């Protein structure tokens, strides 16, 4: 079942599936260029309070994405944090 990247909790790991059509093309391409490529395993490492952008890990690189991007990335949950 595909959920959005934004809905991940700290410690969750997921695999990127696809992108919503609603995400602007330039940003869809950009996040793929940064490594959020379909098939890639991504985890959520920080979720600061008050809706601040969350921090995601792709291999050894950390990126922060806000809801406007992350909510449009469809993922499959691999391991949920206990």
């Amino acid at each position, binding site marked *: 079942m595909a959920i959005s990247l934004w809905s991940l909790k700290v410690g969750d790991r997921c695999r990127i599936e696809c992108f919503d059509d609603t995400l602007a093309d330039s940003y869809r391409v950009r996040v793929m*260029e*940064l490594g959020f490529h379909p098939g890639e395993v991504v985890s959520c490492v920080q979720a600061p309070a008050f809706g601040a952008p969350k921090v995601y890990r792709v291999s050894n690189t950390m*990126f922060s994405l*806000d809801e406007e991007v992350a909510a449009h990335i469809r993922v499959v949950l691999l391991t949920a944090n206990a």
Partner: protein
Amino acid sequence: MRKVILIGSPNSGKSLLFNRLTGMHQKVANFPGITVDMASGPMQSLPDVTIVDYPGTYSLQPISGEEEVAVEHFKHALDDPQVVHVLCLIDATRLEKSVYFMLQVIRECESHGKRVVVLANMMDILKKHQISIDLEGLAREIKAPVIGISARTGIGFNDLVESLNSDINLDEKSVDSGIAEVPDAFLRGTAHQLARRYGPKGDILIKSQTRLDDFFLHSVFGGISFFVIMYLLFQSIFTLAAPAMEGVESALGWVSDWVVPAIGSQMARDFTADALFSGIGAFLVFVPQIFVLTFVIGILEDSGYMARAALICHKPLRVFGLTGKSFIPMLSGVACAIPAIYAARSIDSPRKRLLTYMAIPLMPCSARLPVYTLLIAAFIPQVTAFGGLLGMQGLAMFAIYFFGMASGLVVTGLVSRMSEDHYADLPFVLEMPPYRIPAWQPLIRNSWNRSKHFVTKAGKIIFAVTVVVWILGYFPNFGQDLAASWLGYLGLWIEPLFAPLGLDWRYGVAVLTSFLAREVFVGTLGTMFGIEGAEENMVPLVAQIQASGLSIASGLALLVFFAIALMCVSTMAIMARESESNTLTLKLFAAYGLAAYGLAVLTYNVATLFS
């Protein structure tokens, strides 16, 4: 002449390598998007080679201003016969962020007959953690040479220089990496696989980063530490700089005691005492503060904290129509508006960039610092606690700084709400660099350069203004009576404008001259008091202000005026150029000038009620 271009993803160490190869001093900091313009210089070990430093970009499809600059110039470079080598930097510790762009560069270079050498930077970090990566395998796969280097420690520089030398004679040997004509979508897939296969494995590299982030991005401690760090930044301007400032002050006093009496002619003696020592000297006292401020901001930038601050501020700044990415230009605006305006290039949304331009002139820049310090020192008692960590003057400074920043936000908040699409805007995507121990030497050098720039500026504008003010104030009665001098007459004429602030004509003249540059205020005031005072030895300007009968209400009004008014010719010139709009610049000048005056009058009247 041969050109070698340095290109690669943001924050991969291009500028540091450029500095090492050329001996120049481009700004290096641990934040993606620091370099926003091209820079070039001859290579020290191969003087016929010119190295060109590029802004970083993640791909050939730019989304922000500095990426556009990089891509635009790269396209020209591909057709430039002088460009022989393209050095493409990748960050060996985090291949996933740089290999895609590397593949694009290889593809373009191949179809234009340019030679690419891939430099895998940050090898010192891998060495430290005893991680090895298979650079040869990577080189075989991409059919381009890959050299492991460290721009920080110099690992691999010999190989780098050698490759620049050796390849030169093999010209036009056709390279075929088999990726010419391959579409971007395919390259993204390849990049993804290469990063997986050749990137460093395991968690070692990000462990400490995650631990620090657990604290600095914590829901509670993150916010608290943000404010504590910002407060310490302002307090350090006082605590750390105070001894040096006293040192400069007493050194100047000592030199003037020694020089002034030795001058034969009365007029030359007066000029030296009033214009040089009281005028320019009053301003030199603040140089240590500029140094400390640049240094502390530099620590924040190079440690990697700045990206966290941008993240923390993103949501709150959005309320005011800005983005977390506006935070860095705005904080550099605390040092100086000019680099801040350049730094705003890295904001991808044009509208938010424009709003950031509006906020920058309200950031409390270091040229305001002398004015603030002077007025605060004149009115606020010097009480401290906790060994200088907490002080009344520091708090007052914090308040006036906060006032400037808050007014910047109010302006952008109001302006952005005037347009329909206040919330609909580009998303926020930012690489979080790893935390690093700052590189001290470049930091000190950068702070030193800023201070030097401050002093050279003094050498020009301030000197010119001080001399003019001195001449007008000294003649026709040879310094006997300032009020009856030419300057005095001029002053009477403008006095009505400043009467609503409770300021006499001397302060009026000082304010008017500071429209060239704010710090001129101090020089002008120093010169006038110097002419007035009969003493030949230097009296600290603070004492003279206290003795001049300036009321607290007027002092506050002055603080408010300086906080708001756009008084800097250079800022206006750069803003007009970067925003490509003279009207915006002139409108801001007029609006901030009127607002400053209005608020200052209001402050004066309210404060008078209470005193």
